[in-house]
């Protein structure tokens, strides 16, 4: 280490104060164990400068001392040990409740009810109920456009900001699109419709209303081999008055979330596929949300109906419980699976043959 103008404060070059003396007269340069009073040095140098004959010696002395003083010096003596307090450990006492809040019996009771609730979606019913409210529209409110798309049309209305009020006093706010289309899939026509909205509200003067957001639609494909495939999908966070809602769980607020269903029929054969993440509105329910993961039920793989896929149920504290039925390749003919909570088996959960039969008994679609 060297001492220079650029490093006036580096260790070893820092003036040290001798205890009890005035800094101006008692600063010293550290040079190992030796200490030279700077005042004396400066005094000697000053004399040398004033006396040319002595200058050479003094210059050498100054340079030597400067280099010696600022040359590498051993580390400072370690500071005297300090008795610092020891930090206390932090020993929190808060514990999370990780226990299951759901029993097998509660799960067993909830599962078929939930499946029926999802199946009871009735997308056409939701479409028609909104259609009934749209009858309150007039020529200017809400502003509506109809445009052609490939194989169909899109009817769209929008009334942003404070919305608009039609002639009979009905409020329209937001944006809704209604699409009908016929497309081709594998050379076979697929006929479908969808109703999509951002946030919207329609409210009549008599208190009938629907508000929230919605995306719902359905398709039908009739194949030449007699296989008919119907699909429906819904994503909904809706509210409606009691009259408008009827008994539709998505409109009564009993169900929120999203679901996709596929129903296939060919002669007596029936197939039902379900994917959904839904939650009931009942805050006191034992099951506060449910996932249906690739649930498939058919009446061909097993005599009383085969079941595959998995279901996850959430308890009141947010603990998720899983039950795995068979796989696509090997559906469960008993339709039973072990209810699992965080790796612990809780007991068997089953769909009875009667429940399976009920889910697979329909003419056109199960919804």
């Amino acid at each position, binding site marked *: 280490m060297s001492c220079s103008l650029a490093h006036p404060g580096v260790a070893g070059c820092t003036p040290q104060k001798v205890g009890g003396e005035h800094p101006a007269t008692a600063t010293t340069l550290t040079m190992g164990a030796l200490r030279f009073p700077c005042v004396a040095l400066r005094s000697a140098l000053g004399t040398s400068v004033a006396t040319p004959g002595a200058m050479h010696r003094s210059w050498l002395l100054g340079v030597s001392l400067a280099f010696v003083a600022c040359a590498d010096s051993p580390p400072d003596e370690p500071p005297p040990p300090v008795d610092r307090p020891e930090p206390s450990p932090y020993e929190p006492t808060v514990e999370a409740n990780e226990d299951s809040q759901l029993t097998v019996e509660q799960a067993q009771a909830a599962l078929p009810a939930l499946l029926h609730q999802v199946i009871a979606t009735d997308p056409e019913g939701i479409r028609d109920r909104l259609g009934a409210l749209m009858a309150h529209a007039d020529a200017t409110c809400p502003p509506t456009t109809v445009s052609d798309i490939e194989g169909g049309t899109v009817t769209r209305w929008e009334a942003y900001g404070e919305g608009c009020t039609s002639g009979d006093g009905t409020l329209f706010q937001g944006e809704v699109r209604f699409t009908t289309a016929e497309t081709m899939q594998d050379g076979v026509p697929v006929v479908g419709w969808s109703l999509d909205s951002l946030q919207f509200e329609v409210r009549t003067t008599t208190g009938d209303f629907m508000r929230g957001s919605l995306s719902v639609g359905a398709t039908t494909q009739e194949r030449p081999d007699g296989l008919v495939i119907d699909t429906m999908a819904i994503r909904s966070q809706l509210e409606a008055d009691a009259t408008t809602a009827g008994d539709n769980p998505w409109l009564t607020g009993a169900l929120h979330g999203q679901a996709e269903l596929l129903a296939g029929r060919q002669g007596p054969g029936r197939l039902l596929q379900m994917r959904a*993440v839904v939650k009931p509105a009942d805050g006191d329910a034992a099951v506060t949300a449910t996932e249906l993961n690739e649930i498939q039920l058919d009446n061909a793989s097993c005599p009383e109906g085969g079941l595959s896929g998995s279901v996850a149920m959430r308890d009141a504290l947010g603990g998720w419980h899983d039950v795995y039925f068979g796989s696509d390749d090997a559906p469960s003919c008993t339709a039973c699976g072990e209810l699992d909570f965080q790796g612990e088996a809780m007991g068997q959960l089953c769909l009875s043959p009667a429940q399976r039969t009920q889910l697979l008994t329909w003419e056109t679609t199960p919804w």
Partner: protein
Amino acid sequence: MVKPRYLLPLVLLAVGCDDDPAPPPEAPAVDPGLDARSVLVRASLDVRGVRPTAAELDAVLADPTQLDVLVDGMVDDPRFEHRVRALFAPALRTRRDGYPFDATDYGLEEEERLRFLRAIAEEGLNLIGHVAATDRPFSEVLTADYTIVDPILLAAWPLTQTGEQPASLREGTVMARYDDARPSAGVLSTNAFYWRHTSTVDNANRGRANAVARAFLCEDYLERPIDFPTGVDLTNETAINDAINNNPGCTACHATLDPLASHLWGFMYIADDAVTWSTYQSQNERLWEQRDLAAPGFFGTPTSGRLSSLGVDITNDPRFVSCTVQRVYEGLLGREITVADEGQLAAHREVFISAGLSLKALVRSVLKDPAYRGRTHISEWGGRPEGVDLKLVSPEQLSTSVEALTGYRLSIFGVNMTEIDFAVRALAGGGERGPTSTPSLGHTIVHRRLAEGAAAILIQGEGDASPLAQRLSGVDLSAEPSPDLIVGLIADTRSERVTADDPAVTSLITLWRDLSNESSEVAWRGVLTALLADPALAIY
């Protein structure tokens, strides 16, 4: 004459032997710090948002040992809750002017927009303020099964007022619970936190997870030095996910960030409407699994994924305690911590822990800190924290202190304008991340405007029972003020006791005389504005 070649050794020696070295660290000159009056003013503004009363001032001037008694009691003042919210506002960052939905989206009146906005901004802070003011263990901010809100939110969000309302609640708030089956995790269960820290499905709550870690663990991933990988196709989602899981430059953060983020899917809104956004989406809690993302965990330890467990895990983390201490210390000292502060942080941590995570105890401890009281010192826990000589009042403190003195508040639709950026907060140096500590022209302008407004209402006799209104009560405002009256006004506003012949008194009387040529009302406005706009009210 000294030849040039002699200059170098001369300079070297002169530098090496400087007679006036900086004071060595182990032997500082005696640093008296602030006097008792200044500490009283500082503590009062920091803990209550107002200047000390004349009685408090006189008590400390008469007997400086009364200082600690008075300061200790300040945390029991109802206004402490207000200041706690301000202390933690930079942590939550919810005090902002815009949110995804406003009052009209819930069928509320247009005039309620600002109130609704403020209600969202304060939700999480209300809970923190309540826990602190009622001296409950601070861990409750992340474990509470209730929230505290402006009742306007009851009409918009799935909230139900609890049956019994604590008497300790701040006026204009109610205790409520969400009735949409969301887990109980205090601030982490509030809508406001996630409305402020939004996410997209592709971001997968990572930004939110960082907001949680930053707010409660002082662990900001965005401040970590990273060697950002350059070979990743950022337009390809698969490539990004692969990098997140396998590229060392990414996993350094994502290995712990992503498992945190997987706790937060219940606040992922699949639809953009006001109802969806206000309702907990419990059915989405396990979307991380469907999207093949990291399983929930807490810094290396797998968790059940419940949001309530995350709240507990955070409060059980020693960093939660250290972070809280740091926030209070930085907030009260008005500066960021340095390495030199580590010892004192440890000292205050001891107090906080031994008091059962009482924020009141922690604040009391910091109020006694030598650095807070302006004294640079060597901590017995190590380090030599720099004393804080001067602080700049925040726009909020400026407003509350002027209001307390005069009854005047600059407001719009009933909301304090110093709390809204598009009003005067940003101009005065405020913001969602906390106020600036640097004086500015904007701060001075707002200060001046408050002083002018307050002076005007005092002259109009609208200051109600404020100290200045009382001081002026019965005074003949058409006559020249007496020196004693000015002495009293200076004590009220600047918290200083001066004598009747003090130059400041003379100057103000002279000002009154000069302005009285126009009218005595103008003269009084001038005097009161000068008193209230005095820099002594902005620097403390």
